[in-house]
């Protein structure tokens, strides 16, 4: 059985004989290479992308090892992958902790008319670019603005996650940032203050360089992916729900 995965950290299209949970463990803790680090990846519906990949090569390479062990990974592409994959081909999103426990997030269509809880947001873009951006736009407005060509920078698609801002989401001037784990919280506050001022600014880059991992506990609502008006949402459970539904993952983050 072949599985196709779209890895977000780093971007790659990978074929594997491992099912998602085992693939997550493999990606995060590795084998002989002793890799270490969290993994975020989608499972992709192979049937919908057959015309995009060299199936003959895939069928040759993605076969069990001589000793019968399943093939862990066959890298199919490591560049501009998201751009090519149709959004409809994306199945569940998987988050793996850096010690190998994986959480499945189901795909939902996003109701853009739904009001968000907070006025200010912190978005960690993951694909195809990955700055950390503060914004006063809703996730759908943010996605649309970056993908619809209304500004000079245009992305073909965007995959990002909404991170917690605590009290700063409502009042960046006065609320305490004490419990936020981000680097240089002072700068984050400055960025949020710019968004609430009279500058006609709706996005502000907080960090240009992505560390390569997300603190899962700081996820506010979940992950978003889409382009223009097509948007999908992968809601992240609350800690209480997570403790109840995936205890191993909960303990590992």
């Amino acid at each position, binding site marked *: 059985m072949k599985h196709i995965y779209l890895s977000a950290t780093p971007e790659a299209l990978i074929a594997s004989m491992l099912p998602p949970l085992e693939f997550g463990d493999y990606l995060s803790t590795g084998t002989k290479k002793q890799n270490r*680090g969290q993994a975020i990846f989608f499972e992709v519906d192979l049937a919908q992308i057959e015309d995009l990949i060299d199936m003959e090569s895939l069928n040759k390479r993605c076969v069990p090892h001589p000793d019968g062990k399943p093939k862990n990974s066959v890298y199919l592409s490591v560049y501009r992958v998201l751009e090519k994959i149709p959004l409809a081909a994306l199945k569940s999103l998987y988050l793996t*902790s*850096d010690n190998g426990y994986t959480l499945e997030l189901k795909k939902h269509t996003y109701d853009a008319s739904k009001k968000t809880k907070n006025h200010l947001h912190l978005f960690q873009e993951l694909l195809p670019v990955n700055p950390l951006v503060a914004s006063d736009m809703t996730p759908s407005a943010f996605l649309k603005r970056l993908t619809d060509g209304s500004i000079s920078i245009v992305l073909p698609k965007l995959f990002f996650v909404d991170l917690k801002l605590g009290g700063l989401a409502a009042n960046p001037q006065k609320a305490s940032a004490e419990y*936020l784990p981000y680097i240089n919280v002072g700068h984050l506050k400055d960025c949020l203050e710019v968004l609430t001022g009279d500058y006609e600014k709706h996005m502000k880059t907080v960090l240009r360089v992505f560390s390569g991992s997300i*603190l*899962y*506990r700081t996820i506010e609502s979940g992950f978003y992916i889409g382009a223009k008006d097509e948007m999908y949402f992968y809601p992240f459970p609350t800690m209480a729900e997570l403790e109840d539904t995936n205890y191993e993952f909960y*303990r590992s983050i």
Partner: protein
Amino acid sequence: MISLPGASPFEIIAIWTILAIAFFGLAYAMFLRRQVMACDKGTEKMQDVWDGIRVGADAYLKRQLKTIVPLIAVFTVILFLSVYVVPPTDESKLRFAGYSDESLKLIIGIGRAMAFIMGSVFSLMVGQFGMRMAVQANVRVASASRRSFGEALKIAYRAGTITGMLTDGLGLLGGTLIFIIFGVASPDTLLGFGFGGTLLALFMRVGGGIYTKAADVGADLVGKVEAGLPEDDERNAAVIADLVGDNVGDCAGMAADIFESYEVTIVSTLILGVVLYTQTHQLSWIIFPLLVRGIGVLSSIIGTYLVKGNKNDKTNNALKSINKGFYSSAAISIAAFGVLSYFYLGDWRSFFSVVVGILLAVVLDEITKHFTDGTYRPVKEIAKNAKTGSATLLLKGLSYGFEVAVWQTIVIAVTIFSSIMIYHGQPIVYVLYGVAMTGIGMLTLTGNNVAMDAFGPIADNANGIGELSHLDKDARKIMDSLDATGNTTKAITKGVAIGSAVIAAVALFGSFITDVTKVQIQMGFDQTAQLLSTGIRISVPMVFIGLLIGGTIPFLFSSLTINAVTRAASQIVEEVRRQFRIPGIIERTVKPDYQRAVDICTVSAQRELVPLALIAVLSPILIGSFLGVEALGGFLAGVILSGQLLAVFMASSGGAWDNAKKTIEDGLYGGKGSEAHHAAVVGDTVGDPLKDTAGPALNPMIKVINLVSLLAAPVLIAYQKPGQTSIGMIVTGVICLAIIVGAIAYSKNGGFKKIPFEP
């Protein structure tokens, strides 16, 4: 058999009742053992994991026994012969009137040697049997957690109570038996009993502390930090050593440690009680403390039955239930002491001393909790400092560690002052007796305390077995909850252990002054030259030198134990890294060789026992030989003061760093993987050997030094006449110095073999 002039029928009955209670405590331990052993051990996979822990624990205990037994033999001979150096006391002559001098020496010599063996064997039994019981219980707790929280809690706590009852029963049995046989002559032999228990506790504490932290630090550094594996991951070659280490350190080491405090407070109280008995002819000075201990055993047993969880709960507040048992036992004890004081003593002074002791335990608990529990401000602040990196986190922890040492020492000072107030206007020996009674009170609930402590490794190991055998989520939640409670109970009992060690040491210090004076009277010293009259004058340069050197000993001890942990942890790191490179281990297709890591820890821990024991035993003799007996008193004061401060500092700062890390892991500042977490892991790793190796090892060390001083003081007085230089003493001092220097060199290098420098 009992030779107690002036004993009332009630007192004769009381003595036998106390003996019966001691046996009852032991029988209750056996009863609980049967209950625990009757529980099921779970699935084949669980038993497979457990078997690794059991084999590792057995290997450690066997090797420890091999190292210790020759030393017990040597010290038994020395203690037997000591009576030929310093003749038996006048009280011994009175107790065994009619015997010739030679027969008397033989009786006391054999008594002292046998008491030493009894103390050693009892301490060894508490540690070894308690640890074996904990190992037997952990798999059963893991199995019970698949059914209910209540059942798992009950098995874990009752298994811990077995060790608690052994501590109570054997401690009470030893002291009472010696008193029944030797009567007023018991101080001559009690020292042997105390020394045996304390020396063994030192071995178990040092060995256990080095083992547990070498395994823990080594396993964490490669497994969690370097390879990113979760706690108790089966691919980590040190995982079984880590689980064995929890038993070795927190169960065997701690149980033996509390046992010797329990034993030493009885020894010092009986020694001072006999002094008061000879002055007042009231036997209650001796009988009352033994009755207090007897009541403590019974109230601890009652408390056990109050520790239970709700059968239908998935998880419950285990700490609440354990506290309910503890405070109920305390209330029952206080009420019974009151009744006893009213009807038997007709005097409330001893009652007040005992109650002050119980209050001291409660206050020390609260101080420890305040500075080390994650729900209070200090740990929250330490965690907050993790946001700015490990340096600020470490500094904040150091700052709080120093502060706890101040408060705890002040509380102990107030406790001693309360004895002065309770016995206001009485000679100093009454005050010292009051301090000893405070120690008796403080350790009244030893059964509960040891049960709470042993509960920690049992719950921790059960959780490890659950993780390694992939138990279901509900069972894991129950074990996580029990494990978290165990961490708190362990921290609390550490505070009690340190506090009781200081109180016991102060009581022994009192015994030192009275014993030295007794020998000085026997030797015909003028009253003005007797230690009870002169006191220990730190204005005398020799005494001040003794004080200074005494203050350095806990630092030397801590340096050597931390060095040993560092060295052994490095070996574990290399071993785990080596095994990670073996194809198949990371993929889980090949099982790691767990035994290698177990062997490394076992060998490293045992290697340090002899040099550290030699330092503790010979340093007071060295000081006494060169500087005299009064300077030895100064030396003891220095050891007690710096030992107390350092032990509290290390235990508290280590505990606070540990809980700061746990607070962050619970989700604060981003949880696991955040920058704050990385800083907190550094703090926890630094704190581990402080709180679990060096700090706890100081408790028995302080008392070994005190007891050796008590044993050596008569010899020093006999062979060191004022104003004369004794060649024998100088030669003894030089030999001690040479051995101590050799022991330090051996310990620093991990043996006499030169280790090549590896950059």
